[in-house]
Every structure is written in C-alpha cells, then in structure tokens.
C-alpha cells in the first residue's frame, strides 16, 4: 500500500482516499529534520559495520607497492590479482572448500536425522524420564568444547580418525543434534494429537507415522535446522583446529588461520584469503536469508 503511493508521486491523485490518507500520514510523522538525523545515524552505524569489508575489498586488488605508497583507502591504480592467485595456489583452496562442504553437509543431514528420531521419542512418544533427557541435552549445549577436546582427540586417534574430516562429521553431528533434539522436542510436544490418532486408526505403524505424518508437518522447521547446522559447522574453529593437522584435511577457516603466522604474507594475499574465505558463507547467506532470519527469530520467541 505504502509502496504503491510512493511510486506514483507525480501522477494525479488516482483516488481521493489514498491521497488524503497519505497526506495525513505524512503530517503525523513529519518531525522536521530529526528523522533525517536518525537515518544518518543508522547509516553511519551501517557504514562502520561494513567498513572492514570495504577496506578488505580495496586492498585485495591493490599491489603491495601501491598499498605502501597510497595507503589502504585509495582506489587501486591497477587491477592486481596476483594476491588472489598466490592465496589460491598456496592453500590449495578448492581442497579446503570441498572439505568444508562435505563435512558441513553431512553434519547437517545426519544431525537433523538424529534430532528428529530422538525428538520423536521425546516429544511424541513422551518416553519416561523425558524431562531429564531434555535437561541433559540442554546442558550439553552449554559445555565448552575444551572440556571434550582431549578425550575426543585421543578417541579419534585410537580409531584412526585423527586428522580426518570424518572426526568432524562424527563430533559435530552429535553436538548439533543435542541442540536439535532440545528444540525439536518442544516443537513436537505440541504436535496435534488428533493427527497421530487418525494415522494410528488408519493402520499406520510408528515408523510410518514418523515418516508420513510427523515429517511432512515439521519439514519447515527441519529445513531451518539443516541450514543452521550447516553454517554452524562451517564456521566451527576450535575442534577442527585441533583435529585437522595437515593441509589436505583442513577446512576453510583453519586454512586461513594457519597462513596467518606466515611473515612472508603480503597485504593483498592476506586480504584475498579473507575475501575468498568469506564468499561461500556470503552466497549461502544471500541464498537463505529469509529462512535464516525466520530461524533466528523463531528460536528466541517461545
């Protein structure tokens, strides 16, 4: 409605109702320059938030000489892509990207599946001791990873999964599922009983009820969980840092961090590394922005 009236400012009033409505609205909210001041404040904050990214972009494509001569804020004198190439080759970026993709992807799928099974028992099956179970899963979410790391590190060594992406898949499937079970249990706790009884009357067994009745109904929630598990695992740092020790197994954030100590690293290479490491998450964010926003806010409001 508001959008329609705004797009037709020059056009003659197409309906007196809209016209007066708009004018009254303007009068009521028009408070002189204050609204512009506030818009500027909001814009300045936004500028501060993206300033590091702008600086990164400017200096990715600027040669080291250009950087030392003209500083970080100048426009690049020539389009310099050598830093990008150096980073790409040095860390063998496609390998890191693939490591991040397959581990995060499997964690997301397994994590959601495990959450759904457990939450089915707790939320719909209402097994005995479920309050305790939910409590334990909730508590598990609070644990700092440091409290698990050394035993996990040794366990993975014993089963030959140290320095393997599979250790990441195993560990994070369980960690994410602890959260997923907690969340899904409360969602399934309010599942309409009538649906379950109707399915039961139609001769559906447990497995069919889970697959044909519960799953389709909670699919939107599951897809939000799936996306979150993927992003969370992608962004994980501590456990992958400890577990993945060689170049061929590391994930994107670890690859960049292990380059960091290198004294030979010049400014464009470092910025190129940051840029390239951020792009996958950025694409993912733009692609799933709606789902993400829905998920962030849905999690907060009970």
């Amino acid at each position, binding site marked *: 409605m508001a959008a329609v009236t705004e797009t037709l400012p020059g056009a003659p009033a197409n309906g007196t109702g809209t016209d007066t409505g708009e004018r009254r609205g303007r009068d009521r909210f028009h408070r002189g320059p204050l609204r512009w001041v506030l*818009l500027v404040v909001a814009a300045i904050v*936004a500028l501060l938030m993206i300033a590091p990214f702008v600086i990164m972009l400017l200096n990715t494509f600027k040669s080291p000489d250009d950087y030392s001569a003209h*500083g970080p804020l100048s426009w690049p004198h020539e389009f310099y892509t050598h830093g990008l190439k150096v980073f790409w080759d040095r860390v063998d970026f496609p390998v890191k990207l693939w490591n991040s993709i397959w581990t995060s992807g499997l964690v997301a799928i397994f994590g959601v599946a495990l959450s759904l099974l457990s939450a089915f*028992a707790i939320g719909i099956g209402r097994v005995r001791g479920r309050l305790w179970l939910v409590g334990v899963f909730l508590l598990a979410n609070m644990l700092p990873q440091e*409290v698990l790391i050394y035993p996990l590190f040794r366990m993975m060594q014993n089963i030959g999964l140290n320095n393997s992406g599979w250790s990441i898949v195993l560990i994070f499937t369980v960690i994410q599922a602890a959260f997923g079970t907690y969340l899904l249990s409360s969602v399934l706790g309010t599942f309409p*009983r009538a649906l379950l009884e109707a399915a039961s009357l139609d001769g559906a067994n*447990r497995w069919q009820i889970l697959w044909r009745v519960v799953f389709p109904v909670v699919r939107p929630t599951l897809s939000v969980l799936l996306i979150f598990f993927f992003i969370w695992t992608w962004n994980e740092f501590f456990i992958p840092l400890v577990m993945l020790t060689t170049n061929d197994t590391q994930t994107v954030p670890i690859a960049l961090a292990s380059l960091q100590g290198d004294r030979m690293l010049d400014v464009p290479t470092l910025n190129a590394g940051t840029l390239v490491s951020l792009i996958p998450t950025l694409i993912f964010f733009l692609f799933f922005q709606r789902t993400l926003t829905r998920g*962030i806010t849905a999690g907060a409001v009970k």
Partner: protein
Amino acid sequence: MSSAPATLPTQDSSAPPTARRAARRGSGRRRWVPSTYWLYLIPGLAAFVAIIGIPFVLNIWYSLHKWRGGITTMTWVGLDNYADLMHDDQFWQSFRNSVWMIIAMVIIPTVIGLLLASLLFDYIGKHFNGRVASVLRATYYLPQILPVAVAGILWNWILNAQTGALNQILHGIGIENPPDWLGNPSTALPSVMLVLIWIQIGYPTVIFMSALQRVDPELYEAAELDGANWWARFRAITLPQIKPETFVITLTCTIAALKVFAPIYVLTRGGPEGSTLVPSYYSYLNFFDKSKVGYGAAVATVLTVIIIVVASVIQLLQNRSARKEERGA
C-alpha cells in the same frame, strides 16, 4: 503436557497383555498408546554418550592426574590441580577477562542492539520504507554469519601495528606514533572488545526487531493519545514487552562470552602478557602447548561449572521476574 502421560500409562497397564499385543499387531481396537518409543532414542543416546558423555567424564578423570599427554604415565594427584588453580595468577586473570568479554559480548551489544532495533522499527521502517530498514538490518547482521575466525583474521590485519589499515590511515592524517593496538597490554583488551562488539551487534538487533513487531501497536497508540513521548513509551511499553527476548539474548550471549576462543586465538593468542587471556584459551594452552593435560582439564572443568552456575542464576532470575509479573497481572 502433563495430562496425557498421566492418564495413558494407566490405561495401557490396565488392559490385559494379550489385548495390548493384539492392538499392536493391528487386529484389535486401535488406540494411540505411547510406548516402545525408546527404540527411536537409541541412536541419539548412544551417539551422545560416546561423543559427549564419556569424554566429559574422562576429562574430569584427567583433571585428577598429572599427565603430559600421549603415552606418558598418568600420576594420580587427586585435587592438586584444582588447588594449584587457586594460586595461579594467569587462571584468575583469564576469568577477570571473562568479565570484560561479557561486557563486550552481552551488555554493550544488547544496549546498542536495542537502540538500533527501535531506531529501525520506530523511525526508519515507518518514515522511510521497510526496504531501507531491512537492508540496514542485514548490514548489521553480516558479521554474525561469517566464520568468526575469518572475521578475526581480517581485524588482526586492520589492527596490525606496521602494515595494518588503521595505523596506515592514522599515519596518513599525520599521527606520528599510532599505538600497537594488539601488541600493547594496555590497548589489546579494548581492541579485542571492540572487535567482539562489532561481531556481536547484529544478533540482538535482529531479535529485538522481531520482538518489536510482536508488540501490539494499540498499546503505543493509547499511550500516544495520553501524551506519552517516545522515551516514556519506550520505558513503559517496549522494555517490559520484550523481556522474554532480552532474557534469551542475555543467556545465550553470556554462555558464548564465557566460552569465547576463536577471536582470541586469531587476534592475540591471549597476549600480550596475558592481557587478553580467557579460560578457554588458557585450557587449550595447557593441553596442546604446555603439555599439562591434567591442568588443562581442570581449567576446562572449572569453566564448565562456572558456565552452568551462571546460566542457572540467569534462568532463576528470569523465573522469578516472570512469576512476579504473573502475580502482578
């Protein structure tokens, strides 16, 4: 929630076993009777015990030993590691810094986030249009979705004393000796806090914006008719209405602040002189750098206890305030 399990099991047990079996097989009268759901819990529980339960207990076991890790021998020392912690300056320093982390990751972002959210919702969303507000919101949220380690590495460069962008800019405007932001004990902690605030702001902003949408606009209209100005409406309506979200943000961010690791690792590694040391990094240092596994395990265990205590206290305060509200209503 409580009525169904109270009545159903009694029905279940009062039916003769044959009838129950018949019902399950599908020939008798079908009723929705929950049981045998434990089967579905088996994979989740087994995985949980293996990956979280056992390691958690093992870690406590390690913390009672002196152990250099790997194949070296473990020596039982009882609570000695914990006793040593009490006299360990670095340990206390790390927890003092945790308080600063809470200020940087909970208190400041929540206040700024609330202001930004009301600004976007009350002013920009209404006076300009919704698109401007949602673009701004996405901008504020951007640092939240990026790998925190990558964002930290970007900042590490910006704040670098020699090649960093900030000091280059300061040089450019004629400042001779700009500070070594991350290398000086007096500026390192504030610099780290600034980065954390930058990372954190988007989260409360997004949650508060959706909270504000939930508030009934009629409340504001009534208050406006009574002549209440923006600040009065904000205090009397907005703040009480968005209490549940404020609680969720406080709880989750406080836990995150106590656990913070990656930004410290990529920005300062706890230095200089321990000025940005945090418990999680101190524990990591003991595990993998100093090879004091028992000691590191003790630090991690203490951190866990503190997180659980702090989270319980916040939850308790929330329950009390909710009960007070119910009684008041």
